[in-house]
C-alpha cells in the first residue's frame, strides 16, 4: 500500500493550489471575478478529467480527487463538475466523431455545456426521466440544472419508450440553448453560481447522441460523485482551518476561545471526522473504475459519510465562530453553504445510505 500521490499528481496539486491562491478570493467566490477556465485548461486541470484514450492525461478517481479537493479548498463556484467533467465524461463514454470534437473543446476550456438531466419527479434517482422524445420532438422539464442559464449547449436526456423508470429507453440529445422551444429560467444558487429550470416544448433542433445513454450517464455520475465528495472534503478543510485559527485568536473572558475545553474537544472531534472523510473519498476514488455494484458501494459510502460529516462541520464551525460565522462578509459562510448544498447534489445522505444497503446485499 502507498498513500502518497504520484509525482505528476503532486505537481498538479501544487500548481493548482498556487494558481487558485493567486487568483481566487472572496470576490471570485461571489461571482465577481474573471474567467478562470483558460487558466485551468492551461494548467492541465481539464485534461486530468479524461483518459489518454480520450485525449486527456488522467481520468482516474485519484486525478479527480486531487483536482476537486483543491477547487473545494478555494471555494470555487464555477460548475466544473456539471459542465466539463460530467458532460465530458458522458460524451467520452458514448464515443463517436462529434463527441470527440466537443471533448477537445472541453479540454481546451472552450466548450460551454450543461447537463440537463435531473427532474423534480426524479428527486435523486438518475434513472427516472419524464421528459419524452416522441414524433421527432422533445417535450419536458429539467430542474435545478447547474450552469444551465449560461451554457451554449445542453445535454438533454429523454425517454423514448416505456415508463419514466425504463433505463433502456433513456436517450441523449445535444440541444443548442437558443433554439425555438427551449425556455430557460436562471437564478442564483445558495452555494454560488447559477442554476436554471429548463422547459422544452416541441424542440426539434437537436442532435441525437445515443438512444441507449443510461450506462454512460451512470458511469459519468459515479465520477461526478467522487468529484463532489473531494470538493466537499476541500471545503471542510478550509472551514476547519479558519475555525482553528479563530479559536486561537478570539479572546473572551480574558483567554483564547481554544483554551475552553468544551471547544477544544469539539475541534478535535471535527478534525478526526475530517480524517475519516478523507479516507472515504480515497476509497471511492480508488474504486471508481471497478465494476458497478462494487463501485457504487464505495461511492455511496463516501457520499453518505461526507453528508454526515459535512453537516457536522458546517454547523459546528459556524457555532464556534458565533455571530461572525453567520455574516455574508466573512468567508466561512460561503464554505458552509457549499458543504451543505453538496448534500443536495447527486443524492443526499439518506439516498446513499439506502443505495449502499442495496448494493451490499
Amino acid at each position, binding site marked *: 500500500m502507498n498513500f502518497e500521490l504520484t509525482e505528476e499528481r503532486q505537481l498538479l496539486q501544487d500548481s493548482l493550489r498556487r494558481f487558485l491562491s493567486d487568483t481566487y478570493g472572496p470576490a471570485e467566490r461571489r461571482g465577481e471575478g474573471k474567467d478562470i477556465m483558460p487558466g485551468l485548461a492551461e494548467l492541465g486541470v481539464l485534461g486530468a478529467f479524461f483518459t489518454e484514450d480520450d485525449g486527456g492525461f488522467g481520468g482516474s478517481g485519484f486525478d479527480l480527487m486531487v483536482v476537486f479537493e483543491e477547487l473545494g479548498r478555494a471555494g470555487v463556484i464555477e460548475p466544473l463538475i456539471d459542465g466539463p467533467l460530467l458532460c465530458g465524461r458522458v460524451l467520452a463514454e458514448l464515443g463517436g466523431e462529434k463527441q470527440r470534437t466537443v471533448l477537445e473543446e472541453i479540454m481546451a476550456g472552450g466548450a460551454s455545456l450543461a447537463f440537463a438531466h435531473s427532474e423534480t419527479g426524479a*428527486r435523486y434517482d438518475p434513472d427516472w426521466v419524464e421528459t419524452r422524445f416522441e414524433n421527432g420532438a422533445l417535450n419536458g422539464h429539467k430542474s435545478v440544472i447547474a450552469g444551465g442559464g449560461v451554457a451554449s449547449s445542453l445535454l438533454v436526456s429523454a425517454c423514448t419508450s416505456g415508463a419514466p423508470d425504463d433505463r433502456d429507453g433513456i436517450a441523449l440529445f445535444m440541444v443548442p440553448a437558443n433554439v425555438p422551444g427551449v425556455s430557460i429560467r436562471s437564478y*442564483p444558487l*445558495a452555494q454560488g453560481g447559477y442554476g436554471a429550470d429548463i422547459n422544452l416544448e416541441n424542440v426539434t433542433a437537436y442532435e441525437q447522441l445515443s438512444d441507449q445513454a443510461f450506462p454512460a450517464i451512470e458511469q459519468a455520475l459515479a465520477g461526478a460523485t467522487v468529484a463532489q465528495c473531494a470538493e466537499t472534503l476541500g471545503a471542510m478543510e478550509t472551514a476547519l482551518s479558519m475555525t482553528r485559527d479563530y479559536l486561537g485568536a478570539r479572546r*473572551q473572558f480574558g483567554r483564547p476561545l481554544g483554551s475552553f475545553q468544551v471547544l477544544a474537544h469539539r475541534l478535535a472531534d471535527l478534525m478526526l471526522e475530517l480524517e475519516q472523510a478523507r479516507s472515504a473519498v480515497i476509497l471511492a476514488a480508488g474504486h471508481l473504475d471497478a465494476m458497478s455494484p462494487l463501485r457504487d458501494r464505495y461511492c455511496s459510502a463516501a457520499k453518505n459519510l461526507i453528508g454526515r460529516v459535512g453537516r457536522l462541520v458546517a454547523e459546528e464551525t459556524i457555532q464556534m465562530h458565533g*455571530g461572525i460565522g453567520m455574516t455574508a462578509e466573512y468567508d466561512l459562510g460561503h464554505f458552509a453553504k457549499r458543504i451543505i448544498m453538496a*448534500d443536495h447534489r447527486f443524492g443526499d445522505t439518506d439516498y446513499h445510505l439506502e443505495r449502499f444497503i442495496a448494493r451490499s446485499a
Partner: protein
Amino acid sequence: MDLSFSAEDLAFRDEVRAFIADKLPHELSERVRLGRKLTKQDHEFWHAKLNEKGWLAPNWPKRFGGAEWNAIRRHIFDEECAMAHTPRIVPFGLTMLGPVLQEFGSEEQQNYWLPRILSGADWWCQGYSEPNAGSDLASLKTSAVKDGDHYVVNGQKTWTTLGQYANKIFCLVRTDAGAKSQEGISFLLIDMETPGVEVRPIELLDGSVEVNEVWFSDVRVPVGNLVGEENKGWTYAKYLLTHERTNIAGVGFAQAGLDQVKRIAGRVRERGRSLLENPYFAARLATVEIDLMAMSTTNLRMLSKAAAGQAPGVESSLLKIKGTQIRQELNDLARRAVGPHAMPFASEAIEGVNDAPSDPFDAGAVAGKYFNMRKLSIYGGSNEIQREIYSKSLLRGTS
C-alpha cells in the same frame, strides 16, 4: 396529574383561534409561512391588532396594560400564533424592556415609555453585544460619561436585530471604567435620532438583513434616561434575559415547523411515491416529533413551576438548548425534504423578485431558513453559555 387543558383554557384557545382567523390576512400569514421578509408595516399592523384586543403584552401586569396571562395561557397563545403563521411579537420593547421598566424604572419612566411601547410610537432595539463582548458580555466598552445633565456616549454595539426599523435603543454602557467588569455598567435609553448615532446593516449568509452595527460618537443622552441606579445595569440586564426566555423553548414555532415539514414532504414525490413513505425520511421525522412531544410537556412543567407571569429560572437554559436543537433539526429536515430544490438561493425569494426560482413544493426559502436559524443556538446567550449556567447550578455545593 391531569394532562388535559381546563374547559376555560380550551375556551380561551377557541377565542385565540377565532381572533386570528378574523384579523390576520391570508396573504400575510402565507408570507410568514414561506419565510419571506416582513416589512416594518407588517409588524406594526399585527401589533396594532393585538393591542386593540389587549393581547399585545401577554406577560405584563394588567395595571400597565398587559394581559397578565399565566404560563398555560401564554403557552396556548404562542402555540396558536405560531401554528397560524402570525408575525411574531417583536420582543425588544414588549418582552425585554417592558419588564425592566416595570421592575426598576421610575414612575415617570413607566408612565411615559410603557404606553408608547404598546401604541407602537416607539420601536425599540437592543444594544448589548459589542465586537469584543459577545459571550463575555460584561467586558463591554461603550462608555457613558456624565457631562452636566447629560451622558456622553461613545462606542459600538453589534448584532442589533431590526435596528434599521427602530427609533429607540436600550443600551448597556460603562459608567465606571475603574470598577470590576460587571459593576461599572448602567442601563441607558437612547433616542436613535440623536446626532452621532449611526446604524450600519450586516448582511447574513442567507442574504437577509436583520442585524446591524450601531455606532455612537459623542451622543448626548439626558440623565433622565438612566434606568434605575448608575452602575447597577448588570442586575437589570440579567433580569431582562430571564424574561427574554419566557418563550425560549419556541414550542409553537417547532410545532409549526413540524407541520410545514410534513406538508412539504407530502408534496415531494420520488419514483411516484410520497417522501413521507420513504422509511429513512419518515424515521428522521418521527424522531423529531417524539422529541417535540416531550419538549412541549417539559416546557409546560417548567413554566408551571414558575409563578404566574414570572419567568423560569435556570430551567430556561434547559429549555433554550432543547428548543433550539429541535427547531434546528426541523429546519434541517425541511431542506432535506425538497432535495435538489434546496439549492436555488433564498434571498431573491425573500425579496419577492419576479424571476424567483420555481418552488414546486410550496416550501419557501427552506435552505435560507436552515442557514438563518443557526442563529438560534448563538444569540440570547449561546447554547455553550446556557450549558455553563445550567451545569453550574447542578453542581453547586458538590465540591
